[in-house]
Structures are given as structure tokens and as C-alpha cells.
């Protein structure tokens, strides 16, 4: 069993008069499959990034490495996450449905990693 430590820091000095500046961290146990940071070129057609049948409870990291092109992430039927240039997402996934990814245009690269608990 390995330990994974994800940390998020959110900082904003102008979203409100009450300045935001906080970090949150967690300690996660990873016992099964791992795909360490990798890259894949997307297209405008859906790519099954993670098939639900291949995983159980997992933690997913995604990042759009492109400078301009938007990426859409969905969980089967509905667009759920949209990664603009340089944006990232980190979330727990119960493998209840496939995770699909596609680009708005071109063939930008998506960086991804998955850690199965």
C-alpha cells in the first residue's frame, strides 16, 4: 500500500473583499492500479480514457496541456467538466461510468493520472 498526498491551494485577492488563501491536503491509500502522469492526444471524437469495468474506487487527475483548445470530459452522456487551456481537475471516481474525453478542435494533449484505492 502506498500513500498519496494531494494538496490544493486556492488564492484570490479580488473575487471578494475577503481575500481567499487556503490550502487543503489529504492522505489517500492507494492499493491497486496506478497510471502515473501520462499524455494522450485527443480528437473531437470521444475517447474512453478510463473504462469503469477496469477500476474500482479511484482518484483521477486531469490537466489540459494545450494553450488554447478546450477539452470536454464526461461520464457517459452529459458534459460534466470542461478544461480550458492549462486547467486541471482532481476528483474521486467510483467507476460508476466510463470517463470520456474529447477536444473542441484539433489534437491537444491531455495529461492524466489515476490512482485506485
Amino acid at each position: 500500500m502506498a500513500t498519496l498526498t494531494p494538496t490544493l491551494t486556492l488564492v484570490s485577492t479580488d473575487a471578494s473583499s475577503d481575500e481567499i488563501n487556503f490550502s487543503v491536503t489529504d492522505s489517500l491509500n492507494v492499493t491497486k492500479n496506478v497510471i502515473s502522469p501520462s499524455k494522450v492526444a485527443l480528437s473531437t471524437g470521444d475517447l474512453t480514457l478510463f473504462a469503469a469495468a477496469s477500476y474500482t474506487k479511484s482518484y483521477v487527475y486531469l490537466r489540459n496541456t494545450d494553450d488554447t483548445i478546450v477539452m470536454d470530459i464526461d461520464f457517459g452522456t452529459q458534459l460534466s467538466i470542461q478544461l480550458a487551456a492549462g486547467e486541471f481537475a482532481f476528483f474521486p471516481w467510483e467507476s460508476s461510468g466510463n470517463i470520456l474525453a474529447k477536444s473542441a478542435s484539433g489534437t491537444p494533449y491531455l495529461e492524466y493520472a489515476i490512482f485506485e484505492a
Partner: protein
Amino acid sequence: MATTATISISSPDLLPGGSLSINASATLTKAGVTADLDQKESGVIKLATGTEFRLGPLATEMSGDVHDIGSYIYICNNTTEDATRYIDWGINETMIGRLYAGDWMFIPWNASDDAAEIEIEAQGGTNIIEYCFFNSDFILPTAAS
């Protein structure tokens, strides 16, 4: 100034022969433009079990031609009492994952229509979450009278 999100993911023992270290940072902007975000909502909520709640506004409660990429949501389950308690989170009636005690998530939310609402439901007992929601254009509900 701007609103920025930074993530680091590390592990000393996950990969054979070396440690894992992922680092990324993003400036959060209004949909389709580079302008800074200027609206946010944050808070701490106690959630009882048995009801699925909506977190954040519906798409029609936000203005703008394209608000898909101007919304970001952070949720952390602050529950500490019991490791069996967790929050189910989902979008569009699809349960996607579980936030156990201390777990957090951050996503750029695609609020493409009202069906794409963020749904959360406490399991195993009352859970306490903190959240922060950034958006370009909230619209307050019209007064009832």
C-alpha cells in the same frame, strides 16, 4: 490580481525507483476570456442523510452566453467523526464519486444546462462540507413578492 488554483500530488512510495510529484497551477478566468473571476460563493454546510441536495446554482441562474468554462467548484468533506461517513457527488443524476472524511475535489464545472447541476448526498450519517464556488455571472433569484 487573479484567482489561481494550484495542485500538487506526491507520494514517496507509489512508484518503484522514485517518488511521484505532480505540480500544476491554473489561473481561473471568466468563460472564454482572460478576465479575472469576480464572483464567488463559499460556506460550510451540515448535510443530513436521506436527501440529495443541489450545490451551486442552476445554469439558468447564471447569465452570459457561454458560462460553461467560467465555473469552478471545490468541495471538501470536513467530517471527522466516523470514517464510514461520506458524500456522494454527481452531475446530471449520475453519481460520480465519494468524498470520505478529509477528501476534497476541484473541477472546472461544465454548467451547460440545468440538468448539469452538482448533486451531493450524505451517507452514513450527518456530514459537514465546506465548499467554494467561483463563477462569472450569478443571478439572484427573483423575490417571491
